């Protein structure tokens, strides 16, 4: 009886996945936890490990198809005498398991079968652990509940842990494995937790009537997530705005003079964005309230600065995160930004690349915007926007000169701080950028 392999739930509000490349073909042997197929979510591609060992019997969903969580995507034929039933049987009633005549533990498939059947012949049940139709094992043992409490595993996450015990029970080992995984990618859980609980786009009360020629384009997973996030951000965070002008002439000229040399020496394009991020991280150190999140219990001020930068990709927008950005130089930031943007465009981002952000920069200026009012990247406290650098006449001293002027904007959560703090933050960045003094031909400042 082959076992169904189902589309797993890849994140708290992720309800579907698109299959990428099948890494095994029908007839191939598959070891437990060996990568079976690529699954693409709205953000990243992951390799799905096979929950069972055996031979891949049939592929039910082809590459490129999108299916909802829980859909059977393949069939695996498990070796005879293995504990397939233990892993996949529903929770209700395990009398067969209690009999001891069925091969038990997933750990010892082959070896267990013989002594058990011998005992059965001897009528050994009376001498063994009593044979009673055991009710479904309670899903969470005292130890599992305690671990969940001590390690702060939310009840939702706990529910989502796949149980390898009898009847799908979550065992101690399952929890420990989950914790190890969580340690490896801690921000992943936080990122998945961010989207709205309902997991649906707030639809209008009535659907707009369709006229001939109108077309409904189904939402891609990415589009859906963006929609959810944006709606939630606007719904929950009272946005307020501040904008200042920054005269970046010195910076621009310095860069124009040296960017080719920098490229040759460092192997990377040092963009204006890298300079802005450098200045912004310094400002975030001065104004920690901007590196925070509003919670009913209080303002959660983050210690680390994980700087997110919006990158446009073909069907949408994704925020890549530079971890500990305040510890990086301009060149370091430029390098990491280039790598991340490249991965974003090639769809090879990892979960770590897109999660854990504490502050975000968006750059609509690259598309020509001179003034923008961005939406905060929920659940952060603020988002910085750099608009286009415009060459125009400006007052300089007592005269007029042609200067490079950039609007620098901030959308912020008015619950966390007020306009005065917002403007002082922006002014701090402005002063750094305007006071840019070229140190030889170095990009650092």
């Amino acid at each position: 009886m082959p076992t169904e392999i189902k589309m797993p739930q890849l994140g708290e509000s992720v309800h579907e996945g698109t299959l990428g490349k099948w890494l095994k073909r029908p007839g191939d042997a598959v070891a437990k936890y060996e990568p079976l197929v690529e699954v693409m979510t709205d953000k990243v591609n992951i390799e799905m490990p096979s929950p069972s060992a055996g031979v891949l019997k049939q592929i039910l969903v082809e590459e490129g198809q999108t299916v909802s969580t829980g859909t059977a995507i393949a069939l695996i034929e498990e070796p005879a005498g293995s504990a397939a039933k233990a892993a996949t049987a529903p929770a209700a009633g395990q009398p067969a398991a209690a009999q001891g005549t069925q091969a038990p533990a997933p750990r010892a498939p082959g070896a267990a079968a013989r002594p058990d059947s011998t005992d059965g012949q001897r009528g050994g049940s009376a001498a063994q652990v009593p044979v009673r139709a055991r009710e479904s094992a309670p899903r969470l043992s005292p130890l599992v509940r305690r671990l969940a409490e001590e390690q702060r595993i939310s009840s939702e996450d706990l529910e989502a842990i796949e149980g390898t015990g009898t009847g799908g029970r979550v065992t101690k080992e399952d929890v420990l494995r989950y914790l190890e995984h969580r340690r490896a990618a801690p921000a992943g859980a936080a990122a998945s937790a961010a989207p709205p609980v309902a997991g649906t786009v707030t639809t209008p009360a009535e659907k707009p009537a369709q006229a001939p020629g109108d077309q409904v384009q189904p939402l891609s997973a990415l589009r859906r997530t963006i929609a959810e996030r944006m709606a939630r951000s606007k719904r929950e965070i009272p946005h307020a705005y501040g904008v200042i002008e920054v005269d970046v002439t010195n910076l621009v000229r310095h860069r124009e003079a040296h960017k080719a040399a920098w490229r040759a020496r460092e192997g990377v394009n040092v963009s204006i964005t890298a300079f802005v991020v450098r200045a912004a991280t310094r400002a975030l150190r001065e104004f920690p309230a901007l590196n925070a999140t509003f919670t009913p219990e209080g303002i959660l001020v983050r210690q680390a600065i994980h700087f997110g930068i919006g990158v446009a990709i073909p069907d949408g927008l994704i925020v890549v995160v530079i971890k500990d950005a305040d510890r990086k130089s301009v060149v370091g930031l430029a390098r990491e930004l280039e790598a991340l943007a490249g991965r974003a465009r090639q769809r090879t981002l990892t979960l770590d690349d897109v999660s854990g952000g504490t502050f975000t920069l968006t750059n609509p200026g690259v598309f020509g915007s001179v003034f923008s009012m961005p939406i905060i990247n929920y659940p952060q406290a603020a988002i910085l926007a750099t608009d286009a650098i415009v060459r125009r006449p400006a007052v300089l001293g007592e005269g007029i000169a042609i200067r490079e002027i950039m609007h620098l904007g901030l959308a912020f959560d008015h619950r966390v701080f007020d306009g005065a703090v917002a403007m002082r933050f922006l002014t701090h960045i402005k002063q750094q950028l305007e006071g840019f003094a070229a140190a030889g031909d170095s990009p650092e400042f």
Partner: protein
Amino acid sequence: MADKRFLDAIHDALHEELARDDRTVVLGEDVGRKGGVFGVTEGLYEKFGEDRVLDTPLAESMIVGVSIGMAVNGLIPVPEIQFADFIHPAFDQILSEAARLRYRSNNDFGCPIAIRVPYGGGVHGALYHSQSVEAFYAHIPGLKVVVPYTPADAKGLLKAAIRDPDPVLYFEHKKMYRLVRGDVPDGDHVVPIGPAVVRRSGRDLSIFAYGLMVHESLGAAEALSREGIEAEVVDVRTLRPLDTRTLLDSVARTSRALIVHEDNRFGGFGAEIAATIAEEGFRHLDAPPTRLGGPEIPAVPFSAPFEDWFMLNAEKIAAAARRLVAY
């Protein structure tokens, strides 16, 4: 250090205690001139004489009753009940007199007797020579109950029992007399009554056993290890007072408890261990504390295949362990 059989260790303890303290007296059926039906007391009668090694009539209530009388008169009696199956006529003496003497006399009188009780099946002893009775006695406040496994413990715990100022029941599994060998330290080796000991460390489950079942559990652990299941085997050794600390520490390490004893499962001593673990070690448990014991049969069968079926062994223990680990 010398490699000794289980019964040699018991013999040596008796010999040494008889030599050490003139007040010590060994008494029981066939212990003197015959040297014991298993040979445990061989040579003691010749060495210490009929005043120190007494052949008693065939009357267990009298054996224990006389011992109690000896004890309150300053002697240190070490009575033997030839087979645990025969101890029942002495139950009243043990429970109603020996166990409560100190309490009843407000500490004026103790009862320093150590009752040696060969027990257990698997030797074709049939219905009246194979019983386990430890559960009845572990239940009684005022008594101590020990069940050694290693020869070193056999010697050390018997010495401790003989020197104990209060009544001790010392259960020696007759199948282990010649089956179990081990190193016994030289000199006056005494093992304190009370502490349990981890015989084998493991991480996947704890097996709590005593007597012959420790031997079988270690065998099961070997088999399980080859399958990737590491069982911790704890030799309980003293049933009363129970070393709950060692038991709970073990469960804290492994989160699963399997209690094994040869005695009938229902109402056996394993229930006390299981209940203690459930009550006091609840937060450590990833599976219910589980008992493996003898079946619901009033006596160990005579027919060999039936006796095999009754007795627990390494294979059955391993099977139970696998089920527990798969929970």
